[in-house]
């Protein structure tokens, strides 16, 4: 009996380009990273502030009388101020550990698992460069991380707009708010994701990569708070991830009036420009370090 009694067929079809191959790596990795059952629980936990705000909006629309609803929606301020507030709630110094832990925990295995499973050989014998591999993996990290940033934020924005309605004059503000939300989300995701990606590439152990990236994201804030006990200077605040995110988002949203129910929330005293530059520079440096590391990687 012959097992392989079939003939080999030559492939005459099209071979897609570089972007397709990078995208294939990204989507394949994304599906793997997002396949665990614990992810949903973590996701809900990290998005609690957004979920709470969105549910409040929906409940007020369904169950509360019109004047309560108007008071609530009006009290939140304009769509831009509301969105800005939500972002700051999610990333304030007290809650920032949730998205950080989520981003680090989910993405720390991105490259580490390939190293652990010796899967690098399967990738690197394909027609891709190590840069392509790094970009594919980075895209996957950014996609996963977007689930604690602009994906839930967009859900909130859409809910807000549907309930409040958009008048002619507000369209520009609404569009700008969507763009600012995306920009803020991507900036955070790029900054944190690139750091996690690098630490994922340094070891076969994803846990180690996760712990190191959490430490790198938290330690500067801790050191800054210790230094602040002895030295009084504004620049020390740039060591705090939460504060530079606030400053960057504040600038991206065009320094909105942050008065909610008469209270002034989250007005940043740091320079948004410096914060954005810092985040982009650090993100690029870690991405380049990852690429450099992959070029030095030896398949065992």
């Amino acid at each position, binding site marked *: 009996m012959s097992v392989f009694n079939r003939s080999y067929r030559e492939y005459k079809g099209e071979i897609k380009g570089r972007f397709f191959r990078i995208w294939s790596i990204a989507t394949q990795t994304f599906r793997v990273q997002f396949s665990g059952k614990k992810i949903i629980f973590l996701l809900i936990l990290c998005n609690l502030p957004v979920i709470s705000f969105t549910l409040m909006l929906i409940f007020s629309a369904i169950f509360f009388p019109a004047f309560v609803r108007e008071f609530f929606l009006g009290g939140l301020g304009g769509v831009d101020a509301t969105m800005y507030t939500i972002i700051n709630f999610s990333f304030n110094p007290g809650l920032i550990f949730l998205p950080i832990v989520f981003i680090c925990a989910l993405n720390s295995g991105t490259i580490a698992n390939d190293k652990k499973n010796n899967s690098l050989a*399967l990738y690197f014998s394909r027609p891709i460069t190590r840069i392509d591999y790094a970009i594919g993996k980075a895209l996957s990290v950014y996609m996963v991380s977007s689930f604690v940033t602009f994906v839930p934020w967009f859900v909130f924005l859409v809910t807000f707009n549907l309930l409040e309605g958009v008048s002619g004059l507000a369209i520009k503000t609404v569009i700008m708010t969507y763009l600012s939300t995306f920009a803020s989300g991507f900036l955070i995701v790029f900054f944190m994701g690139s750091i996690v990606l690098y630490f994922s590439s340094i070891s076969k152990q994803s846990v180690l990569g996760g712990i190191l990236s959490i430490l790198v994201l938290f330690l500067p804030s801790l050191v800054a708070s210790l230094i602040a006990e002895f030295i009084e200077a504004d620049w020390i605040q740039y060591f705090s991830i939460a504060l530079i995110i606030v400053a960057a988002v504040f600038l991206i949203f065009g320094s909105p009036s942050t008065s909610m129910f008469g209270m002034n929330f989250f007005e940043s005293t740091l320079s948004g420009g410096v914060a954005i530059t810092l985040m982009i520079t650090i993100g690029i440096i870690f991405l380049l370090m990852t690429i450099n590391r992959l070029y030095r990687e030896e398949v065992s």
Partner: protein
Amino acid sequence: MKEYFIETYDLNKWYKEVMALNKITVKIDRGIVGLLGPNGAGKSTFLNIATAQLRQSSGEIYVEGSEVWNNPEILKRFGFCPEQEILFEWMTGRKFVRELAQISGLSREAANKAAVEAIKLVGLTEAMDRAIKGYSKGMRQRIKIAQAIVHDPEILFLDEPLQSTDPLVRRELVQLIQKLGRDFGKNILISSHILHEVERITNKILLIYSGRAIAQGSISEIRELMDKIPFTIRIKTPDRKRLATILLDYDFVLNVAPDIENFEYINIRTNNSNAFYKLIQELAVESKVKILEMATLDAGLEAIFDYLTKRK
């Protein structure tokens, strides 16, 4: 078209202080070529450098006249079956092959179709929708070959592809590799540490030992060489003294000595295996020497490698 599909010049590879490849300069003919060497000889390192997994420490390597490192254009033409056992364990066989086909540049639809065909070709159709973690070693070997051929590459690098397969599958894989090489004109470099395994696939071989290319040519030449190498035969017989006395009269018997571990055996060293086996048969029939057991101790590849290395 060049006569050779792989050319290397003074190819070296160090892993820290360990030298895995030592100044390898070879030109590998088109067709199916066996890369033969014992475990740890440097076969996988050679294949990994040829497929851009690793970068050489020094020297040059060209596949189809092009450098391979960081060169996706040449990698498009490659198919690689790595030695490692662990794959994307959570994936089904079909998904595994399809995903890798997509990374090779096949559209999703084409990748799916090609994956099914490649899996069918290696005889895994029934198991293709099962997770790889449930696959046996032989099945893993076959799914690795499927992913190597799914995008119809011109050049195939197969690292120990017959390892862990049962005789039936082994025979069929040999036929498949031969078909790919002979009927479809693929250039195939196949590594193995078992001579007869490679012998069934091709007559052209490159011998690697301790990181050095020590011989290149046809298997028949190696076989001839094997016959000339002194090797030891272990015989269990109650007529040890008589047999030893008779054997020592022949020129091709170099030495006869009792086995140190078990005195029921004697070890005979000879430099002509054919003549020796003929003589033993005659002695058993004509002189009534009782031969209870007979085994060759060192006629394997290791002996050839040792011999060639010393001769060099």
